[in-house]
């Protein structure tokens, strides 16, 4: 899936962007996309992800570096000649045109004949199950319907690359999740390349082939969703993707990628060394709440265990969320499946907890 520099469909090479000549919004961006890939740019607002998208679309110019599309540099190509479909957060459906006219627009400017246009419009509308809405105006439709039309409009002229700028941001949760699947489905059935920008990690994980996590103008990690979740490269990614317990400490032993970390209260835990160099380094150990075990039989043999005091148990239906005090920290969370044989925990109870050393990652200190 990961494309090499030469046969990449889209590539950013050493791209930098500054608006004011004083600060860089995008710092030395390098990114390659393969044809047919669904790549999500994920990050907090101001992280540079939207700027990257706008540079790709041609609405912003790169201050330095080169952007290539299908092997050709496009820095100097105006937006309308790039042939990139785009979906906007506020849909950007032309309010003075009907749905049909909106879809017809990209075809008309390409000089397409009337019958061909009608055929394509019908196909695009059917694709998003909006075939009956051709004569409506955008203002007469719900947000979800408008988003489908916006999608259809971005696809109607068969672009090879489609950019989506937080397209589901304005929809309610249920509709958003439904649309995620539809977009994913369209991507798969049409074989298009998609660059998707969002600040919603759930969306990113659900839909993408790969996710680029942006922060501070840089890609922090570029990886498939599972790897991102399972193996965050640094504390930012670990904190940004999913829920995480973080325990600060110092490297006590370092043996290849196996490390033993001494926590602040002196207890020792096992971890996988990711972002630490030497014994004595300060580190932040990150453990997913669902990977923490407290049934002795589930803790791997020889692994360190530490003391925990149950503070609170929250019943959430499918899972039980338990807050514990661990090594002096009150916010340590453990999630366990709500099964019939689950060991009941009560506040005040003291237990030993542990984990597979692969699930605890010793990261940089932020």
């Amino acid at each position: 899936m990961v494309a090499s520099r030469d046969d990449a469909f889209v590539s950013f090479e050493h791209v930098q962007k500054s608006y004011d000549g004083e600060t860089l919004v995008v710092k030395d961006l390098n990114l390659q996309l393969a044809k047919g890939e669904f790549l999500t740019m994920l990050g907090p607002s101001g992280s540079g992800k939207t700027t990257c998208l706008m540079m790709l679309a041609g609405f912003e110019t790169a201050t330095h570096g080169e952007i290539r599309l299908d092997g050709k540099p496009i820095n100097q190509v105006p937006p309308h000649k790039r042939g990139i479909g785009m979906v906007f957060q506020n849909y950007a459906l032309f309010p003075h045109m009907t749905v049909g006219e909106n879809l017809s627009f990209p075809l008309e400017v390409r000089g397409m004949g009337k019958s061909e246009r009608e055929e394509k419009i019908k196909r695009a509308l059917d694709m998003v199950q909006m075939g009956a809405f051709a004569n409506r105006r955008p203002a007469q439709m719900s947000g979800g319907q408008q988003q489908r039309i916006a999608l259809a409009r971005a696809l109607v002229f068969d672009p090879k690359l489609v950019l989506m700028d937080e397209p589901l941001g304005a929809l309610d949760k249920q509709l958003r999740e439904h649309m995620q699947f539809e977009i994913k489905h369209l991507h798969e059935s049409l074989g298009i390349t998609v660059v998707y920008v969002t600040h919603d990690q759930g969306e990113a994980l659900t839909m993408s082939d790969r996710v680029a996590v942006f922060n501070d103008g840089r890609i922090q990690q570029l990886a498939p969703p599972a790897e991102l979740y399972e193996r965050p490269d640094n504390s930012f990614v670990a904190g940004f993707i999913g829920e995480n317990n973080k325990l600060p400490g110092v490297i006590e032993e370092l043996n290849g990628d196996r490390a033993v970390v001494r926590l602040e209260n002196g207890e020792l835990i096992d971890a996988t060394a990711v972002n630490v160099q030497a014994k004595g380094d300060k580190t932040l150990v990150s453990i997913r709440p669902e990977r923490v075990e407290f049934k002795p039989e589930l803790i791997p043999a020889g692994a360190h265990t530490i003391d925990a005091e149950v503070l609170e148990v929250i019943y959430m239906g499918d899972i039980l969320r338990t807050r514990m005090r661990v090594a002096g920290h009150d916010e340590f969370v453990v999630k366990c499946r709500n099964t019939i044989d689950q060991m009941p925990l009560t506040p005040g109870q003291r237990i030993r907890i542990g984990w597979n050393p692969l699930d605890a990652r010793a990261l940089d200190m932020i």
Partner: protein
Amino acid sequence: MSDVASQLTTADGRPLKAALASAQARAKRRAFFLVLPLLLFILISFAVPIGQMLQRSVYNDQFSKSVPALSQWFAENPKGTAPDEAAFAALASDLVLMKETRAAGDAGTRINYVVSGTRSMFTKAARGADKLEPPFMEAMLELDEDWDNPLVWNAMRSAASPWTFDFYTIAFDLERDADGKLTKVDETQRIYFRLFIKTFLIAGVITAICLVLAFPIAHLLATLPMAKANLLMILVLLPFWTSLLVRTTSWIVLLQGQGVVNDILVALGIIGDDGRLQMIYNQTGTIIAMVHILLPFMVLPLYSVMRVIPVSYTRAARSLGATSWTTFRRIYLPQTIPGIGAGVLLVFILAVGYYITPALVGGADGQLFSNMVQFHMTKANWSMAAALATMLLVGVLVLYWLYDRLIGIDKLKLG
């Protein structure tokens, strides 16, 4: 359904609709009292004067109130009857009355509007009216041979009733010949209708120039950051805050033959000293000064519309493959139409009614229709001024109606 609804009652058994109406009546009354001052203000300062103006344009009793006998003769004898001795006798008796009430000048003025040179016939005749003796026809003709002029008699017949369309006849550059048929006035006298058309044309030119100038300014204002936009906005609004006379005078200083612009052009060698451009005291001056004055009325509605057009529309269009020109023409421009409509309507209507600026910088050919309204007001010819003003009002209403038909008044956005 409606039956069920009408049977709904409140807890104490009152019909629901009645209960609702009485509950809302108080609020409605209060709201009405709040707008009452405005309502009265509009009624007194707008509706009543316009009503009076309309009435004055068709009602003029300057002549009719002083000619009871003549009115009777006109009533008894159909149109086209040559004035006989009885008619002259009636006229003579009315002239005596005019002498007593000193109304001859007033009455003569009314006839003079239609037939030039007749006012003094009335004042002269009235002066010696009590010494006139039968046969009156002879006696009157001796005073002035024009007394049997059919045009004068036609005019008197028409003016004997206070309700008249004479002023509209004049306003359309028409007159009645001896047979009472409408004909165009002599070429050298045609002015009102021609000027009416010309005024609308000039207002159109001014509006078009304003639109062309204001569109990029408004766009710039709408896209600049707020702080800079506000600063520029102040510059745009500056003409608003300057007195009309100061602005107009500064245009004179700038544009006149020995003015700043000509001096610069001469100094740069673009024109010779003997080829100084005449940019003021003519139509050009009127257009330049009025564009300047009216520009803010175009910028403001455009700006208010453009400010709320998200940049994503144009970006969407560009990404869909449209060139910047196509994007402007098909996406941006249509969305600014409410602002364009409002600006065009505002500027056009204001331009059509302007008279101070044309009077000061318009010279001979830069005069507009309102200058004629003002001309007749200074000559105390209220009916003529009212007729011309009514023409202007109707012209503007017709345009308004056209606008509603073509673009739709609900699409108007004034800011």
